[in-house]
């Protein structure tokens, strides 16, 4: 382990510590009792004390903090105020839906964006480049929920091809394949909307990198050597643009996770983002805290992963590190 990785790990731990203390103090130092939504004012003081004790809220704040940190680090998220079920169970139930939404969306928009960006860099001033510049501008200025609402209005109301809401039909269809097709039918529109919103910025970014790479001297040399144009494009120019692309892929993950809150709300999907929102709106503090903590953990992990993968893609860095 060298100094660099130690530093990165320490700063990741710092982020987690900050998130944990934010979580703890935000929900406890707010006006009112954290359990006021749970407790009936008609409760007798003894019953109230009993209930506070069951949540561990009768202890002093500092002791509560240590218990809290310990629980969070061991993924014991406690019991949801609203559903009275373990928060962990609720999160586990929703996680597949969120992954099913985000993973295909991110992958598809990255692939589409890279292909379009490379094509735009190749044919400068052409139709593809104009489309890429336009779609990039749109993805920076149009609110995602507006685009999704319009898609819903068009493809679920005016032309009812896709369902208006939900991540599964009620009641769920019988049989494995029916279930799979139903799932795909429900997820197509959300995923498509995220791809539509996401590929523009990808394409713009890749295009800028590629334009820069194609202007370098070694491309001129490769052309002079008579190497095929497609090989120059992918093996020479794209290879140099790859490290920043990989970094951006991982660094874009947090934003994508943030986007899940809105997308799941628009399409009424049964996922983590909607869970966080419902928990916040319903003053369900254990649930909200756990969902936020989980999202932050994923973000931190992605940032670390970006660094690790970067060393693999950029030979200069890993070489120096190995020596």
């Amino acid at each position: 382990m060298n100094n660099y990785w130690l530093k990165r790990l320490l700063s990741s731990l710092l982020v987690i510590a900050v998130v944990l203390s934010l979580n703890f103090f935000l929900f406890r130092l707010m006006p009112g009792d954290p359990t006021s939504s749970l407790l009936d004012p008609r409760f007798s003081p003894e019953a109230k004390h009993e209930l506070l004790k069951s949540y561990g809220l009768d202890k002093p704040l500092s002791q509560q903090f240590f218990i809290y940190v310990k629980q969070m680090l061991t993924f014991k998220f406690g019991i949801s105020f609203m559903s009275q079920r373990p928060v962990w169970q609720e999160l586990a139930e929703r996680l597949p839906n969120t992954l099913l939404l985000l993973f295909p969306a991110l992958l598809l928009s990255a692939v589409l964006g890279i292909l379009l960006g490379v094509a735009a860099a190749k044919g400068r001033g052409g139709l593809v480049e104009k489309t890429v510049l336009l779609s990039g501008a749109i993805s920076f200025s149009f609110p995602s929920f507006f685009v999704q609402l319009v898609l819903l209005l068009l493809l679920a109301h005016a032309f009812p091809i896709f369902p208006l809401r939900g991540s599964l039909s009620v009641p769920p269809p019988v049989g494995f394949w029916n279930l799979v097709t139903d799932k795909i039918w429900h997820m197509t529109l959300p995923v498509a909307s995220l791809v539509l919103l996401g590929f523009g910025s990808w394409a713009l970014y890749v295009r800028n990198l590629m334009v820069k790479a194609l202007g370098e001297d070694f491309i001129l040399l490769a052309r002079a050597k008579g190497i095929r144009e497609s090989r120059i494009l992918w093996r020479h120019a794209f290879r140099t643009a790859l490290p920043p692309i990989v970094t951006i892929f991982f660094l874009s993950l947090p934003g994508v996770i943030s986007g899940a809150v809105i997308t799941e709300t628009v399409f009424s999907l049964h996922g983590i983002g909607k869970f966080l929102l419902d928990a916040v709106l319903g003053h369900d503090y254990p649930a909200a805290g756990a969902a936020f903590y989980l999202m932050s953990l994923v973000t931190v992990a992605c940032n670390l992963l970006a660094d690790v993968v970067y060393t693999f893609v950029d030979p200069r860095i890993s070489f120096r590190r190995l020596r």
Partner: protein
Amino acid sequence: MSFWRLDTLFLTFLVLLTFIVSPMLGPANETVAPPFCKPLWLDPASGRPLSLNAKDNILSFTWESKPPKAFSVKGTVSFEEVPKDAALLLVSPKKTYKLMDLAGLKNLDVDIDSRDVPLKLHLGLNPFVEVSSVIFSEKGTYSLYVRSDVKAHVNLNINIYTGKWGIFGTDQRGRDVFRLFVQGIKISLLVGIFATLIASTIGMGLGLIAGYLGGLTDSSIMRTVDVLLAIPTLPILVVISGVWGRGLWQIVLVLSIFSWMGTARVVRSLTLSLREAPYVEGLRALGAPAGYILVRHFIPEALPLLLAQTVLGVPGAILAEAGLSFLGLSDPLMPSWGRMLHEAQVFGAFTGGAWWLIFPPGLGIASLCLAFISIGRRFEEMADPRLKEMTGR
């Protein structure tokens, strides 16, 4: 480079709309018509909404289009003596409907709505039938008429709702969408500009301090930047505004706390490079005080870039505010564009296909962001003319 281009003109137009048109329109939260009315310029087959005031005993008007959605009669009728026989009549080309029996009282408040079930029963209609579609089924001259055996003073308003209202229609509470839209401009501009101004000020101050002082101050500020950048933005905004409150200024503050990091980084690197620049060293050798270097050299050098940074930060703040409002985390009494979209989604604009509730706020947000991006790009080009060549303009 001329200042008056499409983007600045558009912004000026919006500001004028807020400051001049908005006060003339009346309160945005007022119910003016039935819910989910279409915009006036849609559906020419149904007539314009009608609002008439009757001061005389008899009020005549013509109805030439298809039956309206609803009507209401409101006001007062007072007689000089207590009438033995009096009634409020609505006379259609074919038939006379007795809307209300006025006998036996000297002063009366009239409040009739065609959607009231007692009225339907009084007229001998099925409670599920809309009265206006029965009464206004004919085209021709209608009259509202108070028949009595003594002299009557009438002050009645008849409103006929055709399911169309205003420039942008009405929402689920019967509020005028155009008023809400104009109100929304103000909120978006306020939040966008103030949040970025505060964020830029924090970012500039901390970036300057970090770059100039260096050492422990620098590393602690930069660590804070790293940590804040690593926290997922929207979830933390959702959590904080859910816990802390939903007022306008709370949103502004929360947004600015989580968006100063970019400016701080830029300012810090600028400060570092300028601190080491040979001409600054020369100035210092000549005995120029730090304040002089800062005001006469650093600020002019950094200002265009900082302006560009600030202006380009506005769309982010506008979008974040709209996102929070869309998630229902804003003040319900404060109509903003995000809130309009939230209500459109929650109160079923889709089941009614009410697209006029979705397009005005959505396109408003998008065009406002595009205007700010365009202005920001121009500042950026001013700061670094090389950019012009890169984009090929």
